[in-house]
């Protein structure tokens, strides 16, 4: 007990003196984080005896399938004195809260749309058969996810594609219904249902043991040929067992309550802007109640015409603008609306107070895409906007458009900012130059 308390204490102070202490702490106690930090509002609903803590660090990645048109996004000038681009005009009130990065991309990642799989993993794709690996949100969830009811949330505006991948390269299917997410987060099942669920979890864990054993004997029959496949199955079984153990704890605790009503899902799959807005609202609530700390929210390029005045071709078609002025003008409207949605989300979470700061200061929010140019499916010069998270923002970090800066460096910076003491992620070479 006394040892545990010491660790917590060291860990708390490590937020103010990171460089000195964190490594020692990690070496001594595995990867440790400060305990969940809770606002007054939440204190009523979970872990009653909690003491005041340093606010937790969160990470949210908003990702786009179809990129953002470079000339409309990349500002003129460098550093803090940049002149806002068309897409950044509307977000100047957040100027000191965000950094726009140009001239960066993931080294060795190609393949147009296929590179979406590497967006948050930065895994090279050589030959098209290389295996993907863990995405940055899942790496954080793996280390710190056990502090919250949901280790991470993987969300999409439509469909279930996501940029979130497990360690062995399986895509995590995204949830796309804000109303269902709301139910998962805030609406308790009836005691009877909870009872059944708790029992099923216990039974489920013992079944996991059993099917692992069964798969081992199957593996002996099948021999080497399907080793990889069954290994992936084993890993899944083990991971699920771990998850179930965590769930047992949460299943007995009531879910947090919020004042906001359950959202209505937007029926039109083409209305991506409204779908973003609806999901942003639930994401905000999820962060506010500390239900999770790591979220990805993906907006795909499917569907038809986005219902915005003046748009009459499908989003995907417009992204293949071929420099056609009419198409570029329509695409500009859509993308500007998307950047504004992102900015509205930032403004919203900035209003939520946390100790001496606000939720935005404690949440790194990324907006990015694997496509630097959707018209020719290029994966260079990816659009990158980073906001909040307690960074000292740098305005416009302009790197070489022809010889890109490695974007995984930004991921290293985000990981460190979130308290994970790593100095490498995928093909990174350092932390992000110019960002601290």
């Amino acid at each position, binding site marked *: 007990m006394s040892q545990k308390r010491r660790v917590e204490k060291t860990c708390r102070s490590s937020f103010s003196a990171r460089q000195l202490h964190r490594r020692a702490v990690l070496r001594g106690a595995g990867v440790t984080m400060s305990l969940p930090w809770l606002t007054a509002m939440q204190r009523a609903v979970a872990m009653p005896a909690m003491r005041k803590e340093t606010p937790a660090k969160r990470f949210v990645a908003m990702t786009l399938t179809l990129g953002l048109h470079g000339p409309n996004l990349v500002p003129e000038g460098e550093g803090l004195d940049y002149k806002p681009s068309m897409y950044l005009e509307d977000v100047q009130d957040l100027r000191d809260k965000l950094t726009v990065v140009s001239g960066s991309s993931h080294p060795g990642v190609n393949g147009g749309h296929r590179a979406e799989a590497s967006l948050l993993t930065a895994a090279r794709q050589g030959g098209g058969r290389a295996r993907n690996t863990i995405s940055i949100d899942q790496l954080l969830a793996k280390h710190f996810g056990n502090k919250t009811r949901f280790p991470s949330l993987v969300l999409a505006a439509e469909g279930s594609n996501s940029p979130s991948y497990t360690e062995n390269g399986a895509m995590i299917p995204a949830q796309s219904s804000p109303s269902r997410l709301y139910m998962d987060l805030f609406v308790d099942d009836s005691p009877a249902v909870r009872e059944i669920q708790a029992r099923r979890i216990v039974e489920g864990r013992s079944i996991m043991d059993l099917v692992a054993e*069964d798969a081992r004997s199957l593996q002996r029959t099948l021999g080497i040929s399907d080793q990889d496949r069954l290994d992936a199955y084993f890993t899944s079984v083990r991971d699920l067992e771990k998850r179930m153990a965590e769930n047992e704890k949460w299943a007995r605790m009531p879910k947090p309550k919020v004042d906001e009503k359950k959202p209505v899902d937007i*029926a039109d799959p083409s209305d991506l802007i409204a779908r973003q807005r609806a999901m942003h609202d639930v994401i905000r609530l999820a962060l506010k109640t500390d239900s999770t700390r790591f979220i990805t929210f993906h907006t795909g390029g499917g569907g038809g015409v986005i219902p915005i005045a003046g748009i009459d071709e*499908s989003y995907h078609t417009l992204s293949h603008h071929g420099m056609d002025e009419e198409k570029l003008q329509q695409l500009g409207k859509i993308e500007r609306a998307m950047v504004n949605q992102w900015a509205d989300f930032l403004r919203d979470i900035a209003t939520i107070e946390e100790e001496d700061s606000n939720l935005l200061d404690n949440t790194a929010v990324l907006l990015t895409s694997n496509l630097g140019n959707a*018209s020719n499916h290029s994966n*260079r010069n990816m659009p990158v906007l980073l906001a909040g998270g307690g960074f000292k923002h740098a305005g416009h970090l302009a790197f070489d458009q022809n010889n890109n800066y490695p974007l995984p460096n930004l991921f290293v910076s985000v990981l460190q900012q979130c308290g994970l003491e790593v100095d490498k992620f995928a093909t990174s070479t350092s932390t992000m130059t110019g960002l601290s």
Partner: protein
Amino acid sequence: MPANPMTIKFRFVFCALVGSFCAASPFVHGDEESATRFVFLKQHCYDCHTGSEPSGGLDLERLGNDLAEQEDFDNWVKVFDRVASGEMPPPEDYDPIEAEPLKEFTEDVQEWLATHQRDEHRTKGRVPARRLTNLQLERSLHDLLGIDIPLEREMPEEPKSENYSTLARVQSISHFHLQQHIKIVDSALDEAFRRALTPEDERKWEMSAQQISRTRTRTREPEFIDGQAVVWSGRLTFYGRLPATTARVSGWYRFTFEVESLKTPKDRGVWCTVRAGQCVSSAPLMSWVGSFEATEDPKVVTVDAWLPEGHMLQIRPHDVTLKQARFQGGQSRNGEGGKQDVPGLAINWLNMERIHLGPNDGKVRSNLLGDLDVKLPKSARRGELFWATEVVTRARKKDTYELIQAFANRAFRRDLAAKDLEQFNSVFDSAVEKGEPFVHALRAAYRAILCSARFIYLQELPGELDGYALATRLSYFLWNSTPDEQLLRLAKEEKLGQNKVLRQEVRRMLRSERGQEFVKDFAKEWLELSEIDFTDPDRRLYPDFDMVVQNSMLDETYAFLQDLLESDKSVRNLVNCDYTFVNSRLARFYGLPKVEGDTMRPIQVAASDHRGGLLTQGAILKVTANGTNTSPVIRGVWISRRILGEHIPPPPDNVPAIEPDIRGAKTIREQLEKHRSLSDCAACHAKIDAPGFALENFDAAGRWRDYYPKVIRRKVEKGAKIDASYITAAGQEFDGFDDFRDLISADLRPLARNFAEHLAVYGTGAEISFADRTEIQKIVNKSASSGYGMRSILEEVVLSKIFRNK
């Protein structure tokens, strides 16, 4: 492998030719054949394919020699294909390679690649362990348990490659999937035990026209007029909803109702849709149930619908070409529609039945409990406490173990040794020890069985498949479900491997009820019909397109393919024939002569109709367009890959893509001419563009057109005249679509090969590899005697080595 004369000869050539290159090159790894291959490349290919910007992104100086490296293997296949087809070196810039060295090179490389891959297949198989797809999981649970509740919709979208969900290579698993899997298994088992242990839930309600009509004067339910429930043609949302049909419990319901049309237009009936949903603005999604054409003669319509609790039916006229009534203030007032002289639908009566698809409760019970008797607890309320049901066993352990064994053998699709089942028995035992009731303990054992890797993965060993594995592969190929008793019996008796038996089974399976789904299941993936909803045709450009048309289009393609398969018609029909299947609505949309009736029927088409064959079918034309306009590139790639069997590689990874700039160009043809003038694009576009241009006369909604539309200030005007002439990659000119389809149906072998390949990919779960090519050729040759009959090709695929080996 014995050294063949070719290799020996090569060695001499090598000595004479190579000289100093051999010592200097880092790419020669010792053996001489490999050195000669590189000499050939150096002579004929290095010109363009080396240096800092190698043509097409292919740097042959970096090409390795170790075929175990996937990238090298793939690149060698690329080299072989391009050289063997004469595509490379590009004939426009280089003299052709002399016949003799060309033959020596291609034969050597072919043998080298195929031998390597065959060895690999022998030890590992060409398919890694496949997982059940979402659809296969749903159907397997349905068939094992006898239940009918939808499960697939609860599962996350699965990764696909080339739109195939069965490809093992792209299937992955994580604890998220496993967790989802357990949830699905739980829903299935809960439903099965509920069905087995509670009184039957089938019920029937008879409703008069008045009972399904409105109770207020301003609302969206049907109006009650002269003893009929009436809904007028109009766009009002949720108009025609029937709250009386609201499901109190989720389930399948059968609706039977009598309809007739009112104020019927002279030349047509009143097409109507049946949809289901909550019909309130907070939950606006409606699911498709069916459609029919109401006429002045009353007729009875029957539809089956899955209704989640609280969902109701909506029946209304649904034809955008009919005059639509306008309603004030978002409600329809009594008499408001009738005054406007629009067509309407009258329902005379409606019956609603709670039903089950497939087996009855008795069969569900025997799936779970064999022939054991149950005593339903007297105090139990419906749907509750049934876990406490007493099951009468003779010898408790023995009986239970037998049940578990029988269930496991069916679930795992093979007879297992007793020792492999012990752990499932122990689940039961330990649950009983903990004091769980019998039914609950048994459920736990079944749950473990359905979460086992033996259920989730297909169990196939390298080499020839045993009877069980073959039965399983066949069953998932044709039914997307678990093998039935007969297949398992034939496997056990070791008879299924006999060609005659196998062929008989294929025919039996295709004729069975499940077999009727094969065409749909396969076409959804092969022809990407699963993507039919991906785009909405622009309303201004395609004002007469609606949901009834879209669903009729799907039915057209399904009926067409089903007929080809049943009657073993030639693959020629796929691209060139003089008939199709339509109903009255689709015939009208296509502009064909009038057809009566709302079910699909075969009709002959005239040459001037430009219909007949997949390429003329609305479903295909729609999935290959974006809803607004057509692109010869997208359609061209699609037809090359799906119908003509041309391999079109994706644009190269490491070539910086050229920024498309259409500002100087006008028509799509001119834009593409510009694109083709770039050498990096030319080689593939020579193949892609021909079928794409040939289809330009079909618009994005599937209608024939002679002119492009031009949208000026939101008004559609006649634009440029369409020119569908072009030149094929082989250099044949054509002046339009009709000409083009004659060209591609002149040689049936590529069409047959393509069909065989797609069946094999879908049915085995792996792409056609280099080493498979000769076996595919054999399939094609064997089906020649039937005139390349579609079912013959399918049967030959099943009998082939590709299908019968892992």
